[in-house]
């Protein structure tokens, strides 16, 4: 039985187990991936017959000339750059601190993780009230420090900052959990021998902790980045089904949604989807390249 050759019978048998997963993923994942690429190169698309005509790069040329899409791409990148590094640093810092206080660690861990399990839409509604320029708690607290009230939700200059703060808050717990697991898998002996050799806490951190947790840092960065590239729900709630004042909160997924759902322009929306896909692939490949030099497995 162990070194048996694979037979047709075995293959058929296995296919019975694989069929439900394969059929569903083919209809709802594989076919749509191909379909998006195909739809993105059609000049015209007839929804009622689901056929496209006129193969060309029209949609991509349209995107390359549409100022709104430029803004969506720029905003998405600013958002990612605003969220990812800050989120990684803050969550690493908090997990290091949590590791110092073992007795209360699980309680704090529970609290820090709460936002992650809750619906983005529902909790973003709460933040709309916190961000309110006249009655919001945030401006009230800033007022205690003699800061002028900020139009978090109606001043286009603050749109991305508003989204970034919320998104860091929402996903911090996930990163903290992943860092805590990594920190606790570093063997104690390393620190013991290092302190015997007279290494300072900072030296231990940079020479032992950081290199040994680098695979997790890499994972957390990739996760946070991919999630940030796809930001949508909070924009929808914060700006009542618009992309913010003067489209200041326009992102790639919001653009895709608007072209698809509001304007019924399926080919351009598909092209935007392809651009998002390519950006995520490039970012992941780049990260992999960088990780080969800095991540120690």
């Amino acid at each position, binding site marked *: 039985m162990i070194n048996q050759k694979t037979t047709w019978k075995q293959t058929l048998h*296995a296919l019975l187990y*694989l069929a439900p*997963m394969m059929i569903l993923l083919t209809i*709802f*994942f594989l076919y749509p991936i191909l379909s998006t690429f195909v739809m993105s190169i059609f000049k015209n698309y007839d929804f009622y017959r689901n056929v496209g005509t006129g193969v060309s790069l029209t949609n991509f040329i349209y995107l390359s000339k549409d100022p709104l899409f430029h803004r969506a791409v720029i905003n998405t990148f600013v958002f990612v750059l605003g969220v990812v590094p800050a989120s990684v640093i803050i969550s690493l810092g908090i997990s290091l601190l949590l590791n110092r206080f073992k007795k209360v660690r699980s309680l704090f861990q529970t609290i820090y993780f709460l936002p992650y399990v809750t*619906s983005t839409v529902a909790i973003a509604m709460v933040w709309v009230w916190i961000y309110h320029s006249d009655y919001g708690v945030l401006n009230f607290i800033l007022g205690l420090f003699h800061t002028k009230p900020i139009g978090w939700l109606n001043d286009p200059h603050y749109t991305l900052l508003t989204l970034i703060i919320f998104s860091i808050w929402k996903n911090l717990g996930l990163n903290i959990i992943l860092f805590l697991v990594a920190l606790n898998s570093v063997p104690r002996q390393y620190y013991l021998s290092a302190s015997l050799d007279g290494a300072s806490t900072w030296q231990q951190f940079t020479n032992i902790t950081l290199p040994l947790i680098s695979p997790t840092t890499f994972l957390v960065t990739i996760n946070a980045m991919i999630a940030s590239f796809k930001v949508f729900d909070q924009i929808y709630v914060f700006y009542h089904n618009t992309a913010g004042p003067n489209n200041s909160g326009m992102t790639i997924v919001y653009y895709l949604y608007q072209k698809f759902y509001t304007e019924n322009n399926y080919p351009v929306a598909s092209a935007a989807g392809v651009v998002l896909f390519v950006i995520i692939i490039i970012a992941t490949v780049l990260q992999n390249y960088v990780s080969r030099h800095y991540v120690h497995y």
Partner: protein
Amino acid sequence: MSKKKAANILFFFILLLGAFIMIFPFFWMISTAVKTPSEAATVPPMLWPKHPHWGNFVDAFKSAPFARYLFNSLLVTFCTTAAQMFTSILAAFAFSKLKFWGKNVIFMIFLSTMMVPIEMLIIPNYVTLTKAHLINSYLALILPWSASFFTVFTLRQAFNSVPPQVYYAAKIDGASDWNYLWRVLVPICRSSIVAMSILEIIASWNDFLWPMIVTNDANMRTLPVAVSSFSNDVGTNYPFMMAAATFVVIPMIILYLILQKYIIQGITKGGLVG
């Protein structure tokens, strides 16, 4: 020594402040939900109303068909999770224990789907379901999420960790593959299956973009979609909005508090949350 103590006090204070920031929006949600609209809009903000209006929750629940939305969310979440676990357990078993032609090719093809942003797939899936006349149906909400290769991948890892000898022993005892899978493998890997189920329950309960797109009929809305449109209807009645938000948030928090061990296990075992 006292320097170290001072540092510890400072660090503890930072953690405490952080925990306060994490939990405050939830407190504020409940606190606002039990205020009158005018109490909600006072400057300085009122931390907790003198006479909390707990009846606001009842009024908000009755002011829209929230019972129906709750039922929709429960049904969709239950069916999606059950279907996803069923299809994933079968597939993970085949990849882990069975021999067949094309195993690696099939595995790699489906593995590559994990890289694709789901947002990119909503357009063709919407077209497919429209053609099948399934828009505004439970099937539209459930079917696309009834299989996930991430779950297959994670369960396969769990199944792989069970020594092959167990499989051969069961075979010698005359167990069929089907019996071995459900009577031996699934019970052994119970904690991984529970962990993946909870992650899917959370994802399904909180999903927004897809349910919003495939439901135009108000009766078919799930809670997050219903709550976001409810907030447009009640305008500036923040206590009502906060009460509605509570309906979506609280069930997942309770689930998390009860089962957090498994949730954390699911995240750290899977390693990736995509």
